[in-house]
């Protein structure tokens, strides 16, 4: 576990830093995606809902386009797709407890799974490992964000 400015940012994930989302290859081109601890902080910490757009299940969503929405009393915003892919399924546990995405963002609180359509081409836009966490740290410092 790597903690940067109070934010838990594991090195084994791929981050789309600008959008505060992560991706994790699960095998056979399936990629699990979710929001980072930073996104949880920015949304105010207590969520009212995370809703994956049902119409998008089975459809291709392009990188950085919205796959879900986050609602809190302070904030409403998209969960952008870290990669392009066909949206396979939503994490149904979030319907009962959206705050799993804040309390356990990289575990039980994942948002959706996608079948990547261009993982090899698009992963260059993501950051990972120690370098990735360093790049995320630079973003947090530039924007003066702490968790």
């Amino acid at each position, binding site marked *: 576990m790597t903690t940067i400015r109070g934010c838990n940012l594991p090195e084994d994930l791929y981050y789309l830093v600008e959008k505060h989302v992560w991706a994790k290859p699960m095998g056979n081109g399936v990629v699990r995606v979710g929001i980072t601890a930073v996104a949880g902080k920015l949304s105010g910490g207590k969520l009212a809902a995370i809703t994956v*757009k049902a*119409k*998008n299940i089975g459809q291709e969503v392009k990188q950085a*386009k*919205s796959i879900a*929405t*986050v*609602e809190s009393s*302070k*904030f*409403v*915003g*998209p969960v952008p797709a870290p990669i392009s892919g066909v949206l396979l399924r939503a994490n149904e546990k979030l319907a009962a407890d959206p705050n799993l995405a804040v309390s356990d963002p990289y575990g039980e609180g994942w948002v959706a799974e996608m079948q990547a359509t261009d993982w090899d081409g698009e992963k260059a836009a993501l950051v990972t490992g120690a370098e990735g966490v360093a790049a995320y740290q630079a973003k947090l410092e530039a924007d003066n964000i702490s968790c």
Partner: protein
Amino acid sequence: MADTKVFIIMTSGPDTPRRCATPFFFASLGAAMEYDVTMFFTIDGTLLLKKGLAETVYPKEGGKPVSAFIQDALDAGVKFLACTASTELHNLQPSDLIDGVKMVGGASMWQLTEECDTVLTF
């Protein structure tokens, strides 16, 4: 889904603060869902676009002012249109309104609602 068009007609104004947050919240949410969202302000809704006014309207005591909900919607990419006739009703000039608002006549409202998939009225 970027082609799905949503049109929100906002008639509520500073006399009914509790009716002035949700329309902007829904608009921001629609934009976050990749809908193409337009808000059309008429009757008292137009008053919320008067410079400095929305900062003084609080839907919930101790909560955010309407201006914060407006800013969230603009940041999310929601388009704002104001009805010219309603500005006359309130003796407002186009320059009295916040930046980012386009003035249109009532006929535009008819055309836009026809083009949209969903119309909400508040």
